[in-house]
């Protein structure tokens, strides 16, 4: 017989009885932790997460479930609040990104939760924890785009394409005949320039932005 670790002995009397030995309890998790809630709350847009009272107005009116099965903002919020980190990562890490920011949930929330921003903050929280592994093309592009905006204050098409291909390890693809001829056409028709212009005094703004995003 397995050792019973849950024996409840009071004044020398075992009260729980033997039934616990052959009736395993259906405990799916133990304890609640607010560790993750505290983290999400501090992220930009995440502060209103504490207001949620789980009514389901957000998920009920959400645009996405028709297209993305199981997309459920209420659930994301609850998982974070109650510290179900494993479920959040295993079942929802690819879902939280699908929000299209239509803002229906935000406008309808009876508790004034900025749901879209909170979902975004949860995505950011997961990103910070590096749960996504290899970057997808979208994410890589997002990242380069933001880097470039912060660095130069504008987008240089040639540079962004080059960085994108190198980041996703596909520089060879960029040098294919197709891509090169397309690039040449765009260059001659004036769609892109080899050297993008500079924004005056952007360095200071860039510095400030970086500080803010730290």
């Amino acid at each position, binding site marked *: 017989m397995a050792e019973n*670790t*849950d024996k*409840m002995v*009071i004044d020398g009397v075992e*009260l*729980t009885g033997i039934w616990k030995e052959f009736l395993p*309890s*259906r*405990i*799916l*998790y*133990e*304890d*609640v932790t*607010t560790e993750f809630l505290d983290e999400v709350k501090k992220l930009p847009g995440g502060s209103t997460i*504490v*207001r*949620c*009272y*789980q009514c389901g107005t957000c998920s009920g009116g959400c645009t996405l479930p028709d297209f993305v099965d199981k997309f459920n903002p209420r*659930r994301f919020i*609850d*998982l974070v*609040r*109650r510290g*179900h980190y494993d479920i959040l990562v295993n079942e929802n890490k690819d879902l939280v990104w699908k929000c299209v920011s239509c803002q229906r949930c935000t406008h309808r929330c009876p*508790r004034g939760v900025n749901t879209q921003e909170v979902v975004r903050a949860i995505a950011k929280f997961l990103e910070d924890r590096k749960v996504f592994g290899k970057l997808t093309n979208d994410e890589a592009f997002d990242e380069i785009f933001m880097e470039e905006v912060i660095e130069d204050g504008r987008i240089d098409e040639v540079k962004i394409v080059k960085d994108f291909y190198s980041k996703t390890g596909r520089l060879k693809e960029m040098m294919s005949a197709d891509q090169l001829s397309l690039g040449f056409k765009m260059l001659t028709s004036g769609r892109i320039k080899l050297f993008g212009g500079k924004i005056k005094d952007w360095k200071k703004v860039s510095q400030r932005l970086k500080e803010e995003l730290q």
Partner: protein
Amino acid sequence: MKTVLVIGGGVTGLKAASELAGMGYNVSLVEKEDYLGGQVAKHKYYKLAPDLRLAGDVLDPVIKAVESNPNIKVQKHSQIIAVSGGAPEFKAKIKNSKGESEETFGAIVVATGFGHFDPTVKQEYGYGRFKDVVTNAEVEEMLNPNGPTKGELKRPSDGNIPKKIAIFQCVGSRDRQVGNPYCCRVGCVVSTKQAIEIKEKYPDSEVYVYYMDMRMFGRGWEELYGKAMEDYEVIFTRGRGAEVTLKNQQLSLRAEETIMDRPIQHSVDMIILAAGMSAGEGTIDAAKVLGIKQNDYGFLSPKDDFLSPNESSKPGIFIAGADKGPMDIENCIVEGAAVAAKVAGSLKN
């Protein structure tokens, strides 16, 4: 001038007595304990929801209005043991330490109030077995600076301040098992208030509330619920507490997080049972002595719930406050004033 007998010196009885005296009637207030204020005084209620104002701020003026009024004769430590006659002339036998006496009254107001539900019946919660499982009334006493712990929330077992506290809602309410299928009407707000008080006093502590529904229907209650979530980070879990056991010498509760369909086991330092309201002993006794109708749960039944809410099944006997069913202090005071008007009207005829 006829005298009115008010049975019960809680907020309702006090308010009814002072209102009637203000209208010029002589009032005889009979209280079985040796203090006025009923359950509020007995359990040293500290702060009142939703404004978190001191209970004394409300109770003291009501008591003072009674004690300072020469038209009111307060008889503490007294009980009504028999009543004969009918409207408009009742003969009541009053028993106290000195003996028995008989007095004549024109009308009787029953304001005998409620009793706190005794959670020992709910064996699975371990009240009485585990020292650190306490009731909300006991917490009220602890939080009061004049209480047994001088305002500190301490674990009864070792006197330490608990870090993780769970509150179980609906203990002895909405529960056919114990014969109380009704809602206690105040448990939700009292628990929320206590959670806020605990978080205010001990910001490091964690407070978890296990509820079925948060029924915040009173003035400012829903806002208080929001405040508890937003400003004090009280964790509300939808799911009724199922059982309490000991695990590694620590209290361990089991419940289901119904929103997520997940059973949960949670180790805490202290569990507060939000015990509901049941008909008080005084109410049951009064119903017996006066022969007035009770409902299925022992509370007093009005003649007509809508049209004559303060009249009992017998003419000349009036009922008010928490002896009619669970009620908060705010409404008890309203009831006290309402019954006074009704009594005055009936005595005029």
